[in-house]
């Protein structure tokens, strides 16, 4: 630094003024850019707010679309059993969830009997939140069940049971499409329907079903509701895995 003082002034007075002039021009340029940016920010923020408002208005107008046909209804329910049964049993499940398998295997015979004799109808709510990290099994299995429910609802219970009998390791990648197809065949599903599994036509349906369940307050699987009330109560979850407990609760609700 100090050595510089001894050197001749690199900026003669004339150019010094030019430099100041340059600096001022630079500042003016910065200010122009700054003003453009300021208004861009206001514009973006305004657009975002308007966008959100439009999205709110639009979404509050489009009521849940009924995706028609079969036993898979617009409110993302896979319905099994007689419509006039006095008790409605709602089961929220993810095919990857080991506890859903425990629940189904524990109560399978009772569930089938109750549907058969008209004591209760079952509404399956399919979820796929256990997918992730490259795993797609929950969605693929649920997609297949929706396809069966829409085309051949009479095979839903058997297919559901078959999926739990061959339930894959929770941490793994799940069954392949071919294995799912094989289970469906074993449950009596026709080849025509099985052939549609791979197209994943119901993927969106399953995603929305998952979201709808979350919206309805479901935070874990299996969640079971008897006529809309969560069963069993807090601290008694083990009843789900106790043979006969569900049947008794349904009988109580049907009185």
């Amino acid at each position, binding site marked *: 630094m100090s050595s510089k003082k001894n050197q001749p002034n690199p900026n003669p007075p004339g150019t010094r003024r030019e430099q100041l002039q340059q600096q001022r021009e630079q500042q003016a340029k910065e200010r122009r850019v700054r*003003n453009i940016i*300021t208004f861009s920010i206001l514009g*973006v*923020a305004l657009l975002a707010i308007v966008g959100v408002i439009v999205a709110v208005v639009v979404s509050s107008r*489009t*009521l849940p679309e009924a995706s028609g046909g079969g036993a898979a209804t617009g409110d993302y329910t896979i319905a099994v059993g007689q419509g006039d049964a006095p008790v409605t049993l709602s089961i929220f499940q993810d095919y990857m969830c080991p506890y859903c398998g425990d629940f189904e295997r524990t109560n399978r015979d009772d569930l089938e009997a109750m549907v058969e004799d008209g004591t209760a109808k079952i509404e399956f709510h399919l979820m796929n939140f256990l997918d*992730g990290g490259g795993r797609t099994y929950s969605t693929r299995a649920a997609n297949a069940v929706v396809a069966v429910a829409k085309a051949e609802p009479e095979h839903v219970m058997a297919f559901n049971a078959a999926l739990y009998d061959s339930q894959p390791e929770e941490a793994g990648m799940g069954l392949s499409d071919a294995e799912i197809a094989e289970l469906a065949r074993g449950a009596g599903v026709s080849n025509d329907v099985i052939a549609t599994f791979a197209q994943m036509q119901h993927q969106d349906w399953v995603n929305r079903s998952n*979201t709808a369940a*979350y919206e309805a307050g479901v*935070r874990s699987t299996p969640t079971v509701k008897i006529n809309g009330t969560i069963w069993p109560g807090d601290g008694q979850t083990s009843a789900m895995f106790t043979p006969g407990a569900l049947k008794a609760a349904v009988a109580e609700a049907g009185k």
Partner: protein
Amino acid sequence: MNDLVDRIHRFRQSDRWIFSYMLFSSLLSLVASFVLSVDAIALAQNADAALGCNINEVISCGKVGVTWQANLLGFPNAFLGLIAEPVVITIAVASLGKVKFPRWFMFAAQIVYTIGLVFAYWLFYQSMFHINALCPWCLLVTLSTTLVFTSLTHVNIRDNNLYLSPRLHSGLQAALRMGVDALVITLWLAFLVAAVVLKYGSALWGG
């Protein structure tokens, strides 16, 4: 008009603005982390919750303990917020009281917080695309972490705490003077809002 814009931009560069903004965002982040931590503890204590697969900040089925996402660190992720945010709050409050931290300290804070930001966005990504569930407190963590990060980066560029080359530094300073950072943040937040709205749409307002 020009005068007002001038004053706003000068204020934006002041300690008072940057550190108040940092304090506010870090308090938000601390509150969200606290709520999530309490949730995580309640969930761990609830024997019922251990008999099912839970939709949570990260997914866990009691059967295999917890997933690799949660096992990555071995404790609820929200605890990280409880550890880190008080440090930021301290920096913000002390700086509002005119304390000057050494360059290496602010540089280290920047590095640690950047790691935290990456982790927050990784979790955001997981919950957006893998968990398919919306967690309002997690969204608040993503938002507040972003804001804290921008305030910390702002002050570190302004005070040249990042050991940048003089050319890069003066370029970035000019960008700060022109408000490029504010534009980037606004665009980024608008992008996040759009992503959440497009992905969840009606689910957000119980449609």
